[in-house]
């Protein structure tokens, strides 16, 4: 029988995959992909809690997370395009302008 813990553990594993991506990648676009993965992990957890506690609030929060993710992608990709026009690269090591 699949319980709430199964879904929460799955959500934690998916979140860790996204976290490894955020820690490991140096390309800004890949960092965006990793944040999408982490947001989706939160969505799984919300939907699972909503189902097992028989409450629609979790699904509502998942909807708002999807809206936030969509606007984040719109603004973020605009910023990435501006960065790429200015520097010609999306590599974080090349974009470092301050030495410290």
């Amino acid at each position: 029988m699949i319980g709430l813990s199964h879904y929460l553990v799955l959500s934690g594993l998916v979140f860790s995959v996204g976290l490894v991506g955020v820690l490991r990648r140096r390309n800004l676009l890949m960092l965006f992909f990793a944040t999408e993965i982490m947001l989706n992990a939160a969505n799984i957890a919300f939907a699972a809690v909503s189902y097992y506690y028989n409450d629609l609030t979790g699904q509502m929060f998942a909807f708002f997370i999807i809206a936030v993710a969509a606007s984040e992608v719109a603004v973020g990709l605009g910023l990435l395009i501006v960065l790429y026009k200015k520097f010609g690269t999306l590599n974080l090591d090349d974009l470092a302008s301050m030495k410290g």
Partner: protein
Amino acid sequence: MYEQIAFYLFSVLTIGLFLVTVLTKNILYAMTSLAGGMVFISGFFFLLEADFLGVVQLIVYVGAVMALYAFAMMFFDATRDIKENTTSNYLVFFLGGMIALMLVIIFIAPIMGDNIQSMYPPIEGAGNAQSVGLVLFTKYLVPFEVAALMLLVAMISGIILAGKKMDNSLTTQEDIIIEKEEIIK
């Protein structure tokens, strides 16, 4: 029985596809595997009887967000492999693995949920989309409108940020520069 098979199949496929996204060097592979993982996540939502959420996940994530990434690919050079100097891979995988282990231990602990009462249970006799609409447009109306305003602001900022100097393409410029360098050599 079918639920268990679907759950384990979807979990293995989702984690595998997301691992491909995180570990690959090619942006196109990363994008397609991310889209595949999103599709399987919507499968979880259908398993959890959140039909409307699953459909929204398919439309917004797999449709809109992935199309936006695909459009942004046209600005960046997507066919070339990314060159990154990933320092201390072992440390990253150690930290990620430790955090995964910690989350698993936290989540398999028994939940003290006896006194948790549901505020908005699904309405009897109504489908998932109907009950979601009833709750969203009564209890969550103000956040809904704020989210609409946020999407509007995001759309305007996206247009303004990406729309500057739209008439000269970046990749063709790069190609011209590369060709010139090759001619000089």
